[in-house]
């Protein structure tokens, strides 16, 4: 939800700066179907999770990792667009830490407690899935490349309490750059 808010915020900022939606509508986004397909694959995975991570060879993890491969292709196909390298770097950052930790994004139970989402943990075991996310609960000392995992906490009273990763920050910044440059550049007139 926090990333969706970032997209909406970027569009509203563009409008406030005098940018035009028509220019955004003419964004030459290639392989958009790839992004929509990757998202569609992930919806099933996050809303029908197994209680505990079953490892890299489970069908769900293979599908999740494959969806990221598809996203890399989409980013590569659009490499000429401003901000896409930031977005792609965010994909890579998230992909690396997920691949190193069994195919899902590690998060600590403490971070989940800070945002009040502990009731989403599906099992008391280590490696438990978190409902409606790509996360698994791992202690910090058992997490490989911990600094790339979900470590940044926005607790209440922030309207959208969230825990996010460095990769998520890169994706949000890249999206902001992409939308601003498209909406506010005179060269991209509709």
């Amino acid at each position, binding site marked *: 939800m926090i990333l969706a808010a970032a997209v909406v915020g970027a569009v509203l900022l563009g409008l406030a700066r005098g940018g035009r939606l028509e220019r955004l509508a003419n964004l030459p986004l290639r392989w958009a179907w790839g*992004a929509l397909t990757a998202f569609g694959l992930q919806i099933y995975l996050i809303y029908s999770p197994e209680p505990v991570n079953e490892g890299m060879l489970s069908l769900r993890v293979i599908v999740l990792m494959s969806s990221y491969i598809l996203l890399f292709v989409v980013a590569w196909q659009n490499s000429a667009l401003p901000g896409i390298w930031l977005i792609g770097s965010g994909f890579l950052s998230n992909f690396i830490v997920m691949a190193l930790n069994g195919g899902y994004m590690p998060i600590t139970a403490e971070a989940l407690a800070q945002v009040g989402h502990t009731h989403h943990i599906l099992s008391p075991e280590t490696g438990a899935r978190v409902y409606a*996310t790509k996360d698994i609960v791992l202690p910090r000392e058992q997490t490989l490349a911990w600094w790339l995992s979900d470590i940044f906490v926005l607790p209440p009273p922030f309207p*959208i309490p969230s825990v996010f990763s460095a990769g998520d920050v890169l994706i949000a910044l890249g999206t902001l750059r992409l*939308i601003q440059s498209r909406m506010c550049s005179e060269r991209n007139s509709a």
Partner: protein
Amino acid sequence: MTNVKLFAIKRLNATTLRLIYILLALLALVLAGGAPDGMGGF
């Protein structure tokens, strides 16, 4: 005049549809690539 209005409506609809498509594709790209823990998943 009527033809001009009809053309304007068609043009608006095409642009609006294209905008919705681009916004949905961008949302899909961002949400599928990100991995935060937040309200409503993604």
